[in-house]
């Protein structure tokens, strides 16, 4: 297992390098002068040159990239142009908030999606099955920013059951988590149903039925275990999308996570923070996917890497 993890991490290096290069290049084609942002509109050319020198912006591009790589390896993501604080200090508390939201929404989506998918598969072609799949399709197709607005109007403005936004306890997390998880819920329900139907058609299930095992036991004990594998993969893969999706959901709910930080920093042209946030979220997502791959291999001994 140790060797396997080592090999997978080695495969990851070119991808991580590529991500760093892509973000670096993207942020360098930004029109406008970052030094002007720090110095303000009234700064003279000497002051601008000094700031460019301070941030290394006057160096050749390849030297800047080399420095940037070394800095990232040391865990230094530079300074926020707006607050002058280290970027990591700005990002980390926000990342925790987003992680909490993402975990909660994934848990909610996986649990409910699994349940709906299992029941739909066990009652194939019933009204429940058709209804569940229709709702799942709606969940997949509803943009999170629209669902968030609808939930705010219904549950915060009309019914006054939940706060319309902000942070400060579990109650502030419920509407954003449901919004963020809706699409994953739909995907998990559809995937679980398809996977369960595949397994329920297998010979060993027919054998169990022939032996007189009760249907509930067949579904819960024999079918579910094997049907779960592709679902685990989908849930893990979705986690990255949930993290990225937080940008929209956090904006709708004014939730102080990393997604909202990215949007705020873009509007203030604070590119070190944008760069650091995108890098960190992408790294986390890549690592979660790697963990899922390994877990998947561990759960199903037939899979070889």
């Amino acid at each position, binding site marked *: 297992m140790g060797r396997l993890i080592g090999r997978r991490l080695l495969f990851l290096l070119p*991808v991580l390098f590529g991500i760093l290069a892509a973000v670096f290049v993207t942020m360098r084609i930004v029109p406008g002068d970052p030094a002007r942002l720090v110095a303000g509109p009234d700064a003279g050319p000497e002051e601008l040159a000094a700031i460019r020198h301070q941030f290394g912006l006057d160096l050749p591009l390849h030297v800047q990239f080399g420095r940037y790589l070394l800095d990232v390896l040391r865990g230094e993501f530079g300074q926020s142009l707006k607050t002058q604080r280290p970027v990591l200090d700005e990002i980390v508390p926000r990342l925790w908030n987003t992680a909490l939201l993402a975990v909660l929404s994934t848990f909610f989506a996986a649990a409910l999606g699994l349940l709906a998918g299992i029941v739909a598969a066990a009652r194939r072609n019933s009204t429940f099955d058709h209804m569940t799949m229709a709702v799942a399709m709606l969940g997949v197709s509803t943009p999170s920013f*629209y669902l968030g607005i609808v939930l705010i109007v219904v549950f915060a403005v009309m019914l006054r059951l939940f706060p319309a936004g902000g942070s400060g306890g579990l109650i502030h997390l419920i509407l954003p988590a449901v919004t963020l998880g809706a699409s994953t819920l739909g995907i998990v329900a559809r995937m679980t149903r398809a996977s369960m139907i595949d397994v329920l058609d297998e010979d060993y299930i027919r054998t169990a039925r022939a032996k007189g095992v009760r249907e509930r036991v067949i579904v819960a004990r024999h079918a579910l275990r094997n049907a779960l594998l592709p679902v685990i993969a989908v849930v893990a893969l979705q986690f990255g999308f949930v993290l990225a999706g937080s940008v929209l959901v956090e904006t709708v709910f004014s939730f102080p996570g990393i997604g909202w930080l990215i949007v705020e920093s873009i509007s203030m042209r604070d590119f070190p923070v944008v760069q650091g946030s995108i890098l960190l979220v992408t790294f986390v997502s890549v690592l979660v996917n790697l963990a899922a791959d390994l877990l998947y291999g561990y759960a199903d001994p037939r899979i070889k890497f």
Partner: protein
Amino acid sequence: MPIPASSSRPAAAAWRRFTRNRAAVAGLALVLFFLLMAAFGPWVAPHDPLKQQLDGALAGPSWSHGLGRDELGRDILSRILHGARISLGMALGASLIAAGAGVTVGLVAAYRGGGLEEILMRLVDVVLAFPGFLLAIAVVSALGPGIVNVAVAVGVNTMPGFARIAHSTAHAMKETEHVAAARALGNSGPRILWRHILPNCLAPIVVQFTLRMGTVVVIGSGLSFLGLGAQPPSPEWGAMLSTAREYLRTAPHLSLVPGLAILLLVLAWNLLGDGLTEALNPKLNRS
């Protein structure tokens, strides 16, 4: 030479399977409806989508303004009809960029092989490693806001799926006898790719196109919602929703319509994509 009857049978069978799937037919009908709306919407719109009339701001639906008026008194129905062209055009543009770039990369990588293939496909892996639409946000924040920039950003973000499909299909095609024959006849590499390999990759690429359109619409309108895409006073649906968010307590109907329009457009493409996938891969049909 007459075309043998058997060659049209798979297509006819796929079409029969497609038309039997009510959800897929509904998806196709909705897509056609939105395409018609984008083509003729501006002509049937009852009012000027940009004309402000502040004394009627935030008014609810009435006989003269069927879907009500926005914060500047503009007719919401007219804005939705005009916005269809922008929202759908942006999504189609992004998907065409993604398909064009992705298919070219995939075909060239598969045909040339060797070091070039390795480099191109690893680049595709890097793009694929970015979660969700984070890369699109990075690209559009660098290029600056605007519809064309959003189409480019979403196109880059969506490209890997097309590259992988074209790559794997072309890889299989490369070894077939008719490609070997084309090569033996002295055809050039680009001609073989264009005339002999690409036509055989078209079916999975078309399916991928319809399947991805829903996501592309969400990402494109999502970027406009964040203020990175279409700018006011454009009646793009995501941008309309973004402005409407300020009036959730006083005029919730402002956000209802553009949001519903985006939802239906996404749903339409998803149903069509699912239907096409099932029609072309009957083994997947588990109903």
